[in-house]
């Protein structure tokens, strides 16, 4: 079996898929090995789809994190169970595909607030890569949206607001939620409008509304990209090995990382594979655990961990949730897509950074009536009609921005899961002030629900959770303040990169994956340049020795 590659990539999610595609399209015979701990689960299968429709079963749920696989300490529980997909394709197997850019101020959180961290790059450094990422993921969005500076239009037009969104838009307008001074052109009273949620459409979607399990490959899933690369006859040196958890990254000197060691889960054998460049694309949980497990004579506390920063500054999103009830639903509305169509960035601005920005959206499933379930329960036509036009609930939600804190840390707990990956402990606490701010934000959401003429029936802050974990191997300007440099290269190494949400110094108030994909495009550009330079030097050396 071949054991030497130009690139060894750990993990087979969207980060890995983006890098592999970029490198291969640049130079077709580049040798790349992707090692994925989880299994391959077939997607785009009609039987699986029918099972999802008729029984609510998804083929990949057995790969999710289980409750016992992680401990949570601190003053608030960190939810890890049922979250990540550990498989070929990673969590994009079941993500929501919402694709939002971070805003300029997200890159300067510390400068603006004295808390959290700054990125070593700015929004402008990433803007063109955001365009690439949106084109790659086929993001549909509203070109009239003015909440973000952008140099290219969205590649695909947006979904329409559903009829059920109307009442919330009207309430927002009355509360001045929709219109706020924007950050785009300060002082000019640029308005930030309520928006249409940008979603990764990838290939042609038939709008089934299912979206957690796409039978036709409409919604983006990293699996499809990897399949395409494997089947492309130009890419003869591209390989993916599944059931292959990596345990250790090996170094031959402080700066030179030479190989990784993994186990073949099908036969228990250990293998070491060598790479000129090694990229950890194994997600914000596993990047820090792997770095810290990789102790050697050069790195006594694990690679990149000389300053005890690996795994620290865990950031997540908590979901704010307010549910309101109306006595009737005379139009028989329900949210006709299984994704939110309405969002607002009014509180996702620089002005709100200190207190913690929120990104508001109408929940993806309300109002709704599970007609089939009522039929299953034996309700008659007349009874169901009454229910459809009867009581209606609407749920307004928001992601709350968190700030990275030194004491919040993710680390390995002894033992491994069924794929051979280390278990997890998350130490996570919020300050009293953060709790107060979160509650204040909740009041804001309640006001909207009340303005809609609904009675608030529930109002809560959900646990922070693993869905959007960021920050665990953050980038920065020096080894004293960060784990990687501005190209996500681990400080003091020549050839070890982290391409993951782990490298984000801040988590913003919006979902991370579009930014991750943009960062992966940027990394590809960097690798193309560095490796060109490297091969020139090698050419010179070859000539010299002849």
């Amino acid at each position, binding site marked *: 079996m071949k054991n030497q590659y130009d690139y060894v990539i750990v993990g087979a999610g969207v980060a890995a898929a983006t890098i592999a595609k970029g490198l291969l399209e640049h130079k077709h015979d580049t040798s790349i090995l992707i090692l994925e701990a989880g299994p391959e689960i077939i997607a785009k299968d*009609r*039987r699986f789809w*029918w099972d*999802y*429709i*008729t*029984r609510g079963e998804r083929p990949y749920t057995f790969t999710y994190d289980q409750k016992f696989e992680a401990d949570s300490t601190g003053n608030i529980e960190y939810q890890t169970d049922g979250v990540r997909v550990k498989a070929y394709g990673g969590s994009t197997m079941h993500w929501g595909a919402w694709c939002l850019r971070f805003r300029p101020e997200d890159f300067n959180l510390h400068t603006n607030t004295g808390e959290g961290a700054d990125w070593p790059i700015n929004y402008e450094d990433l803007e063109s890569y955001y365009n690439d990422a949106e084109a790659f993921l086929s993001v549909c969005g509203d070109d009239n949206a003015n909440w973000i500076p952008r140099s290219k239009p969205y590649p695909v037009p947006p*979904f*329409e*607001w*559903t*009829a*059920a*969104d*109307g*009442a919330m*838009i*009207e309430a927002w307008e009355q509360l001045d939620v929709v219109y706020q001074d924007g950050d785009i052109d300060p002082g000019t009273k640029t308005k930030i409008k309520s928006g249409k949620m940008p979603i990764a459409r990838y290939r*042609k979607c*038939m*709008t*089934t*509304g*299912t979206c957690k399990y796409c*039978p036709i490959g409409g919604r983006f899933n990293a699996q499809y990209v990897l399949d395409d690369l494997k089947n492309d006859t130009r890419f003869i040196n591209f390989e993916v090995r599944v059931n292959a958890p990596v345990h250790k990254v090996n170094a031959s000197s402080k700066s030179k990382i030479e190989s990784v060691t993994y186990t073949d889960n099908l036969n228990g054998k250990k293998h070491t594979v060598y790479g000129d460049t090694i990229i950890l694309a194994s997600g914000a949980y596993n990047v820090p655990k792997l770095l810290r497990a990789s102790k050697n004579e050069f790195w006594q506390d694990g690679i990149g961990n000389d300053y005890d920063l690996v795994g620290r500054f865990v950031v997540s999103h908590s979901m704010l949730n307010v549910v309101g009830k109306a006595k009737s639903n*005379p*139009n*028989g*509305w*329900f949210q*006709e*897509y*299984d994704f939110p169509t309405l969002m607002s960035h009014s509180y996702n601005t620089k002005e709100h950074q200190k207190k913690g920005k929120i990104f508001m959206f109408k929940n993806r*499933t309300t109002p*709704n*009536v599970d*007609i*089939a379930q009522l*039929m*299953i*329960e*034996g309700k*008659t*036509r007349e009874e*169901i*009609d009454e229910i*459809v*036009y009867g009581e209606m609930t609407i749920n307004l939600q928001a992601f709350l921005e968190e700030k990275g804190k030194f004491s919040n840390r993710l680390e390995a707990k002894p033992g491994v899961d069924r794929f051979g990956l280390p278990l997890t402990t998350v130490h996570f606490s919020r300050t009293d002030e953060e709790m107060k701010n979160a509650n204040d934000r909740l009041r804001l959401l309640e006001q909207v629900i009340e303005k809609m003429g609904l009675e608030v029936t529930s109002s809560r802050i959900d646990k922070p959770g693993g869905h959007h974990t960021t920050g665990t191997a953050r980038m920065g300007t020096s080894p004293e303040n960060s784990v990687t440099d501005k190209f996500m290269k681990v400080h003091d190494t020549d050839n070890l990169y982290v391409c993951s949400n782990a490298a984000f110094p801040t988590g913003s108030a919006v979902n991370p994956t579009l930014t991750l994909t943009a960062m992966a495009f940027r990394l590809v550009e960097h690798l193309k340049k560095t490796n060109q330079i490297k091969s020139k030097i090698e050419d010179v050396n070859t000539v010299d020795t002849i």
Partner: protein
Amino acid sequence: MNEELTSIGGPVCNEKLPASLIFAEGQHLTHQNKEALWDIFEAIGKNWSNTIYDSNNQRSSWYEMLKAKTENAPNYAGEYVNAIYVLNELYSMYGKDEAFKKLFFESGVDNSAPPTTRLAHCKIYVVNEFIRMQITAGGFKSWGTKYGGEQARNYHGFLGGTRYNRIPRVREYDPETTNSKNDDA
């Protein structure tokens, strides 16, 4: 045979079975089996008056599901044949129309418990799944018209058809014309 009978049917319906899917590896459905099962599907539309053309507009989707469920593991052929036994007993006891009424509205089966009788297997693995499929394939559309309102166009799980479809996918909110189209209805 069973004094504590709370569900419909006779000895066939109430015969005990393990809750797991009835074993059917390698088993295929005959044409007659499929026709007998189609009667259940058609009866769903009739009993809830939520379909047109006697459900024939949904027939190809239904066939596709049946095929997917009997030609791949785990194979549903055993469940489908069991449902036919159950139905035959119900028909002989109550007559066809009444049999479906009882099966859909007063079966006595606990839909959230593991199915441990032939009747419960029929209700949970066949009838309930056919209902979900029927709604997904367009059966949802009939709800939403009561006050002369606009019917729903989409539903979670609805396979909307072709990419060339120019009909709007959902009932839209249009801020220009306001959201209150149906308010006076």
